[in-house]
């Protein structure tokens, strides 16, 4: 078992054919219930993770250390160490906040909405996409926390009863943010955990050391796999999926209110909520892709996270990328159509002003680069999709940067116009947040079931193979089983 990882090489199988006569299977190479458990558990049960894991972990920990130092220095000195100023009083911190929250959205979409829509292919990726959500929201939540001038009074943002009867100001979108993001975090965490219980029980049952038995035992909550437990579990999971679904739409809508509710030209636009949600899903899928491609290689999961999964995600990126592109063009149209000169200037300035470099970076990454996914060759090419996913991550970060910096830098009175230049502390904090994110993600890969084993098994052909109950979904060809045709 332990040696399996090093000996068996899982090959890349093309299961992306859409020939209706011969639908390919989702899970390739003849994986049956047992092997799936084996290959997912192998990651956690291996004596040592692959070397590349140590390298990645080392880099991530360094970055996390940088984050800690940057935040420490920030709290010691004040937000002046960043490039903030008047008029651009929000900078990297808010850009990063929106960026990370957006990333989180793909996880919830995959696990909740695709669950409700019975998209079986979600089962291979939902677990780590959800994990990504949690970690992204942790990173996101950090930024509004540290960007305020007086960190030590942060709790005033929460409606805590006090003898002065002082309450937060409920008209402020920042306060809505607090509720939206904390709700999102809570629901996502619950959803993730509840979904993981049967798999944790599997880990517990396979544990060989006392420590693992106890730890997984605690978190498995006494799961025995009885029919009653499965019944309760599935009801709970469905309810949580139903709860999480509106959050996919609401959280980023509310984040967009931070901008849309203000009176700043370039922020004050009604298109922001749908535009932000589309962008969030877009960036989230790109991040899932960026994580999935190395992870499936590193942990030998190419038969579970197959090309078909990746191709599906590429299709979603193509769609959401075009929605984002549509939003960009509609913004310009409305800026002209509204007849509001300040609005018109905000957008001309965005595209041709001092931040034009950022704007065109954003457009080329977000609108142009996903267009290659019209071609199946690109959709199924690992290197292409990896590069594109990274480009989209960059582009989506720039989208937020453009919205924040270019709108603020030139508002109503030309006398107070400015230009925001980040300092090294801005950059280090941002880089550090990736360290935190990757550290958490690598720990998750190593110690938790990164694929929802129980759910994957339910979409295996074997799950539906009941004699006398008609055809099962898909036909396993010998190639797909990794066997040579006799």
């Amino acid at each position, binding site marked *: 078992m332990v040696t399996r990882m090093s000996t068996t090489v899982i090959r890349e199988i093309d299961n992306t054919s859409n020939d209706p006569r011969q639908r390919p299977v989702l899970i390739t190479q003849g994986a049956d219930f047992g092997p799936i458990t084996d290959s997912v558990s192998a990651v956690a049960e291996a004596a040592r993770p692959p070397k590349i894991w140590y390298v990645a972990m080392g880099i991530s920990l360094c970055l996390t250390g940088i984050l800690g130092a940057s935040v420490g220095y920030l709290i010691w000195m004040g937000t002046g160490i960043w490039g903030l100023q008047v008029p651009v009083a929000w900078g990297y911190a808010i850009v990063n906040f929106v960026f990370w929250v957006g990333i989180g959205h793909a996880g919830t979409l995959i696990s909740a909405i695709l669950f409700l829509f019975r998209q079986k292919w979600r089962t291979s990726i939902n677990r780590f996409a959800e994990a990504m959500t949690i970690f992204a929201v942790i990173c996101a939540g950090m930024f509004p926390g540290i960007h*305020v001038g007086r960190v030590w009074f942060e709790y005033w943002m929460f409606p805590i009863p006090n003898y002065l009867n002082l309450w937060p100001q409920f008209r402020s979108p920042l306060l809505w943010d607090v509720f939206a993001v904390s709700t999102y975090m809570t629901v996502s965490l619950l959803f993730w955990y509840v979904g993981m219980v049967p798999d944790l029980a599997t880990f517990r049952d396979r544990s060989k050391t006392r420590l693992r038995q106890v730890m997984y035992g605690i978190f498995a909550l006494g799961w025995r796999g009885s029919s009653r437990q499965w019944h309760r579990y599935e009801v709970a999971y469905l309810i949580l999926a139903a709860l999480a679904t509106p959050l996919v739409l609401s959280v980023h809508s509310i984040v967009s209110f931070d901008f849309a509710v203000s009176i700043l030209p370039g922020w004050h636009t009604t298109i922001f909520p749908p535009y932000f949600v589309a962008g969030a899903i877009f960036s989230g899928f790109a991040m899932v892709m960026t994580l999935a491609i190395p992870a499936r290689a590193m942990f030998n999961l190419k038969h579970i996270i197959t090309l078909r999964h990746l191709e599906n995600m590429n299709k979603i990126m193509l769609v959401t990328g075009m929605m984002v592109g549509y939003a960009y063009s509609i913004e310009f149209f409305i800026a002209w159509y509204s007849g509001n000169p300040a609005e018109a200037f905000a957008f001309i300035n965005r595209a041709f002003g001092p931040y034009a470099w950022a704007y065109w970076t954003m457009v080329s990454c977000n609108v142009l680069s996903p267009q290659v996914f019209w071609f199946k060759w690109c959709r199924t090419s690992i290197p292409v999709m990896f590069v594109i996913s990274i480009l989209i991550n960059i582009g989506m970060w720039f989208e937020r940067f453009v919205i924040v910096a270019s709108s603020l830098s030139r508002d*109503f009175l030309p*006398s107070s116009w400015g230009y925001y230049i980040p300092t090294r502390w801005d950059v280090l904090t941002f880089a550090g947040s990736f360290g935190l994110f990757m550290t958490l993600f690598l720990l998750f890969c190593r110690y938790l079931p990164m694929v929802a084993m129980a759910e994957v098994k339910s979409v295996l052909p074997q799950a539906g193979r009941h004699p006398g109950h008609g055809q099962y979904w898909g036909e396993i060809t010998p190639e797909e089983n990794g066997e040579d045709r006799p």
Partner: protein
Amino acid sequence: MSPINSTESGQGYWRSLQELARDPAFLAELGPEFAEAADSPPEGTSRRRFLQVMAASVGLAGLTGCRWPKENIYPYANRPDGRMPGVPVKYATCLDLGGSARGLLATSYDGRPIKVDGNDLHPINRGANDVLAEASVLDLYDPDRTRGPIRVEKGEPYYDSWDHFNTTAHGIFAAMRSKSGAGVAILSEASSSPTFARLKAKLLAACPQIKWFEYEPVSNDNERVGTAMVHSRATRPHYSLSEAKIVVGLDGDLFETHPAALLHARDLITARNPDSGTMNRLYAIESGFTLAGALADHRFPVPASQVLEVVCRLIVEAVNLGLQSQYLSPEVISGVRKMAEAKVSVETVPDKAIAAIAKDLMGSKGASAVTVGFRQPPLVHALVHTLNAALDNVGRTVRYTPDPDPARPTHLESIRALNAALTEGQVETLVILGGNPVYNAPADLDFGEALKKAKTSLHLNTHFDETSRLCSWHVPRAHYLETWGDGRAYDGTLCVQQPLIHPLYEGKSALEFLSLMTDDIPQSGYDMVRETVKPLLPGADFEVAWRNLLSNGIQEGTQEANAPFTHRNDLLVQALNASVPAPKLDSGSLEVVFRPHSSILDGRFANNGWLQELPDFITKVSWDNPALFAVSTAAELDIRDGDMLRLKVGDQSLEVPAYVLPGQPKNSIGLSLGFGRSAAGRVGNGVGFDTYRLRASSRMDFTTGVQIEKTGKTCILAGTQDHFAMDEVGAKEREGRTRALVREANLEEYKQHPDFAKHRVHLHPLASLWQPPAEYGDNKWGMTMDLHKCIGCNACVVACQSENNIPVVGKEQVHRQREMHWIRIDRYFKGSPENPQVAHQPVACVHCENAPCEQVCPVGATVHDHDGLNVMVYNRCIGTRYCSNNCPYKVRRFNFFHYHTRHETVEKMVFNPEVTVRSRGVMEKCTFCIQRVAKAKIEAKNERRPIRDGEVQTACQVACPTGAIVFGDLNDKDSRVVQQQNDPRAYLLLEELNVRPRTAHLARVRNPHPDLAEAHSGESDGHAHEHDSHS
């Protein structure tokens, strides 16, 4: 008086009984520390270390005089009459600056002065204030002021005791008196003080061989020599601009550093009322932007060297139009014609403009005024005064009083003579009473080297500056708020200088120092001033008159009478015939014009953070003095903002960064004096560039034939506006928006459409998501800012900084756009970059009814109070900065760092205790001086009456010399602010956002000459003529 000096010098507290008893063993323990600290020379060590050494030395120097405090202290159990703890008291005093006294009212809060306002009885100030006097209170608490006499031996400074100094000085001066002053020279600053003059006379009478010199780097000598040329004696011109319909300003700063600047501004604006039917017209012909130029209806940028020619052309044109006068003799006219022929200046001031100005002057004979700046040579002054006389202006808009000291040589002659005397070794003992000649004497003299030749040199000044370092003794000079003195206003009115606090560091005033020289037992300043003013005060009872003088700060009726003089032409004709036409300038041979800086002046205010951070009124650059280049010159030479250039003329050269300023004359470079100090203190050291290095005795004002070369280096210039080079998209938009933001019309349009300002922007119907705010019960504070009256002088900015404890953030932070000023003056250019129109617009928090900042704050830290003011609750603010993002006026300021941590104890004394000192991480902004509102409310409530209109005046309003800012209760329908808001010129900035600001701006009206109007076309574009409905 407060015995604060005792604690500051270490005399009030002791660390142990041994120390108190001066136990030798204990002192021996302290010894090495003392020696080590005192041994560190200031050169070669860091400034910080030097200051530490100085501070340590002063602490220990106090030990030598260890004694019980001499002052009596009283418990406050029985409160002295008229003293209420916590209730500020105002005292009249004056600041003698460059030979004329500004009349001030200093606010003392429990014994420490915290704010300086203009004295409303003072003929020049009339309650207003300029930036220099406003900021002077900060100098009082400057931690870099020296805290005891410093003896310099072999170039190394040692803090010494007052006792030792007094003994030494006594010896020196006793010897001086015994030799009737042989070998002694005194260099003083210009002073208007009658006591100073009396003591000087007394000293010179006692020691007739003393050589007395007077030097000011920026002086009115050209005017003195010029008036002496045409009048029988040197006179001092006074302009009554309120009577003048046509004002022509020739290369002068009527409103900036002129001693009567506040009077000029007030008078000129009074006569500029667009509703009066006789709005004046202002022409400015100048070599660099001045406040007057920015205000002018027509401005012509002219190199300084061509102003003479312009005056001649103007006179010729006036004569051609029929100007006849006994003062314009045929010889004068022929001389003028000869000068006018060169026509070098035609490019900048076209004939058409000269014709228009001449026509205007001829049409307003007796009601016009031609003024000229101190920078122009005497001949120009002489011609201008001749022209004024020929135009019948003398006695109407221009009058002359005798020069207070007509016999004295010019400052330049004086410093040259002293330099020569020093070099020849004639001066054994040199006493320098204030001033900093080593820094600001002409560069070719090398005054520092000459100074070293004097055997003994004593320098009285507030700081251990460039000059002190080369003298054998530095004597701390007391601040004007610490000592008794007197002075005369520009018009001669007697002013008294009352101390508000005991000298913090035992410093001496110039008067006390003179007394030290004259008398065996030095007299106190109080006695000396009383003795001087006794014959000057009216009435039989001196004590009553004295008390009135102290209470009023000035003595009415003591102004100078008009000077009797006869006009003469002979010297003028001589000078005209001797003068040569201005050389043609090109990019290979440029002109340099030296000007005192609008806030640092000649460098004496270099260690004042408020003034250093104050953006220049036209460039908006703070903390620097770049060389100003015309747009065309910069394009020709390929110069960009911040490029380091080497300017060369004669033997001198200077490295300085460039700044491209629209409206700077072509091929003329503007250089501000006063920067690049090496021994100003922690604030002023190394700020900017020492332009005195280029200023030689042959070219004190301007010079031609300057060459430049690029060094390839660049320098960061920190400005509060246009922080970076504007790209085309932004520049175009800015130009388009300016029209709606700063609303202007020409007088003709205004007469036809008084409400033009309301039609500059067409509003869509304004609807709000929120309930309209409740009407406010008692008071509803509001403000108006009249762009027609604002001259952009920055007085409001400093007044606000002083009143509201606004931190100084430094060049790096200003460059990062983090300046903290609550009120700023936006400057917009309009029209051609070679000769643009300028508009100033003061902007502070407008206290929106529908405040966008309030809606977005998550913790409710900015809210409306019960008077409807938009207030900041610092305690509640957590610093999300969302309010700033959502503020369309960007008037909110954020404490990115803890800007107040670096203060020494003494610096904290300047704070206004009624205003919170904000900490790091909170937002702040204009409060409408809520502390003043609260104070007025309490007083009114105690007296059971409503608050009267005008009872609450904001700090910016008080300082404003032209009354551009009006504050009051919008609920009081008779209040001035309501009248102003109902003025047809009133408009709301960014009204289309429906934030409903409480501050209204009043549009500006220009009065161009009809013949020149197309050059400065107004705003008429048909909009005002469409009488469709505007909401």
